[in-house]
């Protein structure tokens, strides 16, 4: 199941991985943000058998999220030090785009609208118009702490505490940056999952999104508000393991830490605290594949822009009751080259 086209990156981050992202288009650049305060830039070789560490970008505090901008030389980071930064990957220059009053949890870049959106635990979104750097960011208040953020071509999904999900219309947000008037969300929803939302990912075809929770479950929903579309939404259990009987049996339920849609086939991958990555066909509602278990919890996941590569960030999971945590020495980064049809769904039956 796991052929040798999966390899481990030789110089992984020193501490837990918080996020990773491939460059736009056919770029083979991979950015990884880490709790060790660095952002790592890797370049995957052409025959996808190794990735070299190009350089690292040190931050003042752990970095919680990273994304590419419009070009493969431009990146944005979300730091625990409250800052949203732009990094010039060629020169290493870092510019602070905005400052939140709490740690910044996520950053998302929308190439279509040239918007960078950051979400912070100060319960705001900052919306930056990248094409007009002089313009101040627009702050959008949120009803809860954001935990996950994802953008489709026209929508932005913000998942917050208390199972709140807000969906913003990106064109509306873009015009709101000009007027500096925070817009109302396009839709306000309650998560279909009963537990804290862990990750959100949008379908590349702009039809809907998937969310995952700390309780081993993934929900797939559609943007379209019509009852027919809403009736199509579903959720399913995953990333669970039966516990040994002598420990009382039942299931050990792992959080689903990351979700990523395949940019070409529209299938999606989920990564769980159980150390597995599974590929799902959202249309056919089937699991297509589950990859061999990784040595630790899978923290982050990302497809390359052409869908040929899948990067998997592995580090110990944070579990209830932990008073001490360190991903040191146990953080690993794997890259898998996908077969032609490996992530291709069969379509709905």
């Amino acid at each position, binding site marked *: *199941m*796991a*052929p*040798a*086209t999966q390899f481990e990156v030789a110089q992984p981050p020193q501490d*837990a991985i*918080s996020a990773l992202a491939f460059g736009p288009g056919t770029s083979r650049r991979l950015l990884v943000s880490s*709790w060790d305060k660095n952002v790592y830039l890797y370049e995957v070789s052409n025959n996808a058998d190794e990735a070299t560490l190009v350089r690292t970008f040190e931050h*003042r*505090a*752990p970095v*919680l999220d990273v994304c590419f901008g419009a070009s493969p030389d431009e990146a944005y980071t979300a*730091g*625990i*030090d*409250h800052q949203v930064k732009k990094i010039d990957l060629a020169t290493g220059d870092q510019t602070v785009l905005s400052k939140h009053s709490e*740690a910044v*949890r996520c950053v998302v870049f929308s190439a279509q609208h040239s918007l960078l959106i950051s979400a912070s*635990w100060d319960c705001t979104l900052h919306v930056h118009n990248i094409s007009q750097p002089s313009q101040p960011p627009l702050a959008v208040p949120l009803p809860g*702490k954001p*935990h996950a953020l994802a953008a489709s071509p026209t929508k932005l999904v913000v998942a917050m*505490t*208390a199972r709140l999900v807000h969906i913003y219309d990106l064109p509306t947000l873009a015009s709101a940056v000009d007027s500096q008037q925070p817009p109302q969300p396009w839709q306000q929803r309650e998560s279909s999952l009963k*537990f*804290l939302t*862990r990750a959100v990912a949008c379908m590349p075809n702009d039809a809907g999104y998937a969310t995952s929770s*700390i*309780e*081993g479950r993934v929900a797939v929903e559609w943007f379209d508000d019509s009852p027919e579309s809403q009736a199509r939404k579903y959720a399913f259990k995953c990333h*669970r*393991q*039966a*516990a*040994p*009987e*002598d420990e*009382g*049996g*039942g*299931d*050990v*339920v*792992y*959080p689903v830490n990351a979700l990523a849609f395949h940019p070409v086939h529209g299938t999606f991958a989920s990564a769980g*605290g159980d150390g597995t990555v599974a590929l799902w066909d959202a249309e056919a509602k089937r699991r297509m*594949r589950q990859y*061999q278990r990784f040595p630790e919890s899978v923290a982050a996941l990302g497809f390359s822009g052409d869908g040929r590569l899948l990067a998997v960030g592995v580090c110990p*999971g*944070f*579990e*209830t009751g*932990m*008073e*001490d*945590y*360190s991903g040191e020495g146990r953080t690993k980064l794997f890259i898998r080259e996908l*077969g032609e*049809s*490996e992530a291709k769904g069969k379509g709905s039956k």
Partner: protein
Amino acid sequence: MGKKKRGHPDIEELLARPWCYYCERDFEDLKLLISHQKAKHFKCERCGKRLNTAGGLSVHMNQVHKETLQCVENALPNRSGLDVEIFGMEGVPEDILQQHNQRIIQNFYTAQAERQKATGNPPRGQSGGQGPSKKIKYETPEEIKKRLAEHRAKLAAQKAAAANGTAPPAAPADGQAPAQGAPPFPPQQPGYPYPAAGVPPVSGVPAVPGVPVVPPYGAAPGFPAPTGAFPPGPSPPPGATAPFALPARPPSGSPGAPPYFYGAGAPPPGYPGGAPPAMPAPDSAAAAGDSIDQLIRMAEAGIKPGAAPAKNGAEEAGGAGEKKKKGARMVYADTEVSPEEKMAMLPRYQWVEGAAA
């Protein structure tokens, strides 16, 4: 077997169905199974070539794609190994085969019992001509005792013949009695209507039909032969029909979750460990031909009296399901604060404005 193709197949049919070692699916015939394996488990994910075996696929990937096959695709978690060479039904390890058969049997009886409960029909082949189905048909104590006596006599004779004087005939006979007696005592066993639901999910102990019944059974030393008859590897005595030769399904496979209990990590009880302490081996050896009938009788007896035992069973099953649910342990259970927030609060990662910059 032209009869009742659509209805509920009988146990022999079920057991005869070929099934896939890797995913436990069963098939109408061997051809289908083989094509399933080629398509699902032995297909090269690079070029789509369908190989006949995992070994073949491994060689193919090695030679053609210069890759190493690490495990079989789409397999159950503990079946993905490359160490067993499977082709169709060939190569399936004996213990796995036994487990499978046993699961089939248990599912069968569970389903049958449920159907009976639902329809009030008698089991097929049993008392078919019997009139009103509601009529409780179970043996009176006298009948049972008679049968037990017959059994004992039969067994004692066999034992005596087998042991050939090495053991005093009286002792084994006594020892065997409870074991033999166990199955024929259904009316006393409301909690044991049929194998699956009735067996309380006791961990560790391979719950075996008959075991929970009578304390004297603990006098297992009364069986000199049986453990030897079931060494870990080799197949059970040829005559032994599967049902009783098998350890009961591991407790993890509660009726709530039948299909894939193997993932549960419960070790295949009894077999691999060798000496199965509570295995009613003599039963299988001696009462082989009888066992299915007995089971059916038990199922019948267990189910029908007032449907109460069945209800018990159902409740138990429900309880087990609930327990399962309760037993679900979330690795991260804080529903308000995310792991990242907690981590960000640790001194290791904490950010204090002004302290660092």
